[in-house]
């Protein structure tokens, strides 16, 4: 089941990637081959088999809803590419 270049474009948009023309044609070919290889899983009957959610049996992990120290704003912002007034700065979202 080969992927079309249009499908590759759609997946790239979903994954927030921008592909060069070269990557687009390379990925179309490579991803088609990999997905084709994955078809072997269809041979296995998995009717009624639950999907694995956690390999070591575990219940929900909860803690007391008590306030604890968190990262100071200055440290949380230290790695930001752009910041202003103790906020992360991004291109305009609302017109």
């Amino acid at each position: 089941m080969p992927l079309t270049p249009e499908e590759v474009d759609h997946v790239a948009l979903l994954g927030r990637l921008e592909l060069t023309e070269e990557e687009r044609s390379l990925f179309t070919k490579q991803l088609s081959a990999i997905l084709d290889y994955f078809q072997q899983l269809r041979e296995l009957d998995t009717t009624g088999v639950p999907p694995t959610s956690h390999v070591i049996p575990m219940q929900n992990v909860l803690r007391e809803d008590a306030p604890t120290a968190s990262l100071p704003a200055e440290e949380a912002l230290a790695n930001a590419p752009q910041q202003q007034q103790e906020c992360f700065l991004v291109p305009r979202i609302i017109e």
Partner: protein
Amino acid sequence: MKPAVKLNELTAHEIHELLASGQVSCREAAEASLARANEVEPSLHAYVRLTPEVALRQAEEIDERLARGEHLPPLGGVPLALKDIMCTKGLPTTCCSRILENFVPPYDATVVRRCNEQGLVLIGKTNMDEFAMGSSTENSAFGPTHNPWDLERVPGGSSGGSAAAMAADEANISLGTDTGGSIRQPAALCGVVGMKPTYGRVSRQGLVAFASSLDQIGPITKDVTDCALFLNVICGHDPLDSTSVDFPVPDFTQSLGKEIKGLKIGLPKEFFEYEGKRVGEEVDAAIQTALRVFESLGAEIEETSLPSLNYCVATYYLIAPAEASSNLARYDGVQYGFRSPGDDIIDMYRKTRDKGFGAEVKRRIMLGTYALSAGYYDAYYQKAQQVRTLMVRDFQRAFEKYDLLLGPTSPTVAFRIGEKSDDPLAMYLSDVCTIPVNLAGLPAISIPCGFSDGLPIGLQIVGRALDEETILRASYAFEQSTDFHLRRSLPASTKAAADARAVVTRKGE
């Protein structure tokens, strides 16, 4: 008095004896590893960053504590190589990706904190495949690592830097991470010991996430004793990681030296043959010889089969990229990391990720996004998670009968740099021996068990969930009966040294 031994070549437990008895200082130990790194790094590139200031400061602190008569912890003062995927406060942590090139974590990972508390001395951060995605360390944004046994070959991956640093004696102990074999396969290809503990044994807090249901931190060391000592440091429950297991942590060194008479060992045929192809002849021969050693020590060995393992590569390469595509969504140029300007926010995201990620990371994000997208989720992701359940069950059945499962760690010895870079599927298939273990969350080790034309071969031993002890017991018994772990790669400091090794290898043939 200058010590006669080369401190950087010692195991951690050997160096501990010298430090504890005051024969050498922690500073001397750190200097030995740093000097060795400076000598061989131009040809190896095991580290992406050496940290001499941190190392000397930490070493001097421990020397002062020793001078005050304080007790030296078992790994106190031991020079450490740390994979650059574990967060170090105030020191860049890059995952060998352009997108995190300038990222400086505001906190230490839990394992790093534990190492600091026990007085380990950080020599540097080691090279890896970008975001741990790869089996050769060729996917590092900062250039590949070379195998100390043959500079033309890969060290394996993704923890290739840590494994090469051990093989070339650029530190005395190291940490890697293993999502599909990334500790065990490079350990095998570099002739050292590497263990992936049970999923949940070691906290993942502060470990940059690749595939959260598979990732696990573990030691890469020069022998099995060091592996046990390091597990004592890093294992244990952490409230900051909700998947960390609240289960008692034994003293792992207590498993060493116990006999293995009567131990039941299974050989899954799927570890030796995949899609009709047998593992390499030289690997097969070394494993068969190793099996005779286990038999001579009184272990009972039997062939067995875990049929669902025949689908492990397809299953893994659906689940791991799916989790990765979700985990790596956080790299959007907003809170930290690289940003490329764009016309609007979506354009900014896309340009940032296009320039920040390398080819393999993009490929896996594409694969994972596709497998999780509307219309394909059931056929791919859901199906893979169901097949994963079949594998968990096959392992459970096998462990009702056997104490351990054995096989090769890698189907081949180290391959040549560039040999598989253009064929992602061929690269994925090199993980066939190790990925079933991650899918089932089990502990497993790789120990040196032979050589072929001067290249190391690794033996993989898999145990029951939370039973690292039986693995260590068997590994130590094997190590005591063989000398593969004592062989060192020749100094790879210059081209001349590489040529010298080529001559030695030819003579040995």
